[in-house]
């Protein structure tokens, strides 16, 4: 294969990576942006989504597409329920205190991991893709499923953007983000907004995970990488900035995909973390963030 096709392949891989990463990072960014809570357990919501996707698709049986679609509906809802319980039982009781919630979500991380280990086990298990079509390009064949992941993710990102910027719910979320006290004085039930945002953030990660399990297997430790990369994306893009998160996810996903194909995944991570260091030094508010008041 010549360099050109090889680069195209790497770019496609990077785009798939970016698509899933964007969903996951958007969840983390949303939670931090609106609630000012750093959710260290965010990667575990991702893991839980993947593990549940395996469980659901296995339980349903029949054509792979049926199992996958069931997983795409059930897994995010189940993860959302876990997130809601965590929010009510833990975060709310800590009054969303920034430091306390970091410690608490570290605890949540281990709890979710151990629960997955206990009930799911230490094996990595695949989920069969809903359809198995290869698009034959002039130079190589490429999985149509992977392309559909990019499409679906774009759709979901667009939907999130629409909700945030064009609907009343989005307006209420943004008002809460900017000034919790004044929002309350205008009848906004801040704790309900927080619960909704936390659940939505977890569900975005879970959806990303369901999309990824036909490509990578489900494993109880798979939450680490998405958490790290989501943090990288959120820091580069600017905490709480939707546009920044999407652009940074694209940059990090592409560079990760391309560098992984041409060199090694380790180099990709080195480049990404170096970028974070540079951003933190030269533009702490991120590429698209606004400086804190």
């Amino acid at each position, binding site marked *: 294969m010549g360099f050109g096709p090889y680069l195209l392949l790497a770019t496609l891989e990077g785009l798939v990576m970016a698509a899933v990463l964007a969903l996951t990072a958007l969840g983390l960014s949303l939670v931090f942006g609106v609630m000012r809570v750093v959710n260290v357990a965010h990667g575990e919501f991702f893991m839980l989504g993947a593990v549940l996707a395996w469980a659901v698709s296995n339980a349903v049986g029949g054509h792979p597409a049926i199992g996958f679609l069931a997983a795409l509906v059930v897994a995010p809802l189940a993860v959302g329920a876990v997130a809601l319980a965590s929010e009510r039982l833990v975060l709310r009781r800590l009054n969303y205190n920034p430091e306390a919630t970091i410690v608490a979500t570290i605890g949540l991380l281990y709890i979710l991991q151990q629960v997955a280990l206990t009930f799911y086990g230490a094996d990595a298990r695949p989920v069969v893709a809903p359809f198995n079509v290869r698009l034959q390009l002039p130079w190589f064949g490429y999985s149509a499923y992977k392309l559909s992941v990019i499409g679906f993710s774009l759709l979901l990102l667009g939907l999130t953007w629409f909700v945030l910027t064009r609907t009343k719910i989005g*307006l209420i979320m*943004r*008002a809460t983000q900017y*000034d919790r006290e004044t929002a*309350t*004085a*205008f009848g*906004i039930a801040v704790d309900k907004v927080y619960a909704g945002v936390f659940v939505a953030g977890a569900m975005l990660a879970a959806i990303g995970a369901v999309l990824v399990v036909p490509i990578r297997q489900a494993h109880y430790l798979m939450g680490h990488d998405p958490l790290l990369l989501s943090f990288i994306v959120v820091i580069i893009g600017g905490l709480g900035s939707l546009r920044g998160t999407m652009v940074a996810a694209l940059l990090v996903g592409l560079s990760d995909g391309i560098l992984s194909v041409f060199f090694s995944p380790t180099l990709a991570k080195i480049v990404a973390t170096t970028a974070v260091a540079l951003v933190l030094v030269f533009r702490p508010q991120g590429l698209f963030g606004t400086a804190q008041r």
Partner: protein
Amino acid sequence: MADALAMDKVDAGYGGVQVLRGFSMDLRAGEVLCLLGRNGAGKTTALKTIMGLVRPTAGTVRLGAVELSALPAHEVPKAGVAYVPQGRRLFAELSVAENVEIGLNARKKGNDVRESVLDLFPILRERWRQRSGTLSGGEQQMLAMARALCLEPSVLLLDEPTEGLMPSMIARIRETVASLKARGVSTILVEQRVDAVLSVADRVAFVENGRNRETVEVSRLRDEPGLVKRYVGVG
């Protein structure tokens, strides 16, 4: 006249710090009551306690028959109390339109209310899509008032609405308060300077050290300028 709103022996503060100490106050229906007091006297804290943003540790806040202090904070505006905070506290990143929308949303008011509020502050129509943080100080204050009036409140709380404004703007605000009074809105107006309120207030409550020392008719204030000097320090 019936009380629109009453605070009865309220204790309140922040964390361990008590600010209000047995604070009592009654706002009569349809009147403009002015809270006067030095910096740090507890005027803003009193308004925040009415809004439920600061929870009383003792005492009650009532709106007619409704005990506001028993409601969650976000229910207070729905009961008909609107708040114009000190320093305006606009959602600076949001547009003028979006700030107004937040106000309308509090009590699910429609376009008719929006239009009648904007008729009071027509300049806001010209700034409709502008980010509210980029408005001039006077425009920001008008937006803060408009946002609150979108609730069609029965009680309006204004915390130093004239702070940092030029005299013509101050006069505009005063006219607005007077016209709201004519429509039956009861208003609590927090001010530092007595001359800003004399023409519009019915009564003045002197706040000192977290207490309401004395509530007097404005007419008495004209006869006894010493009162103001005693509580506020300047005439």
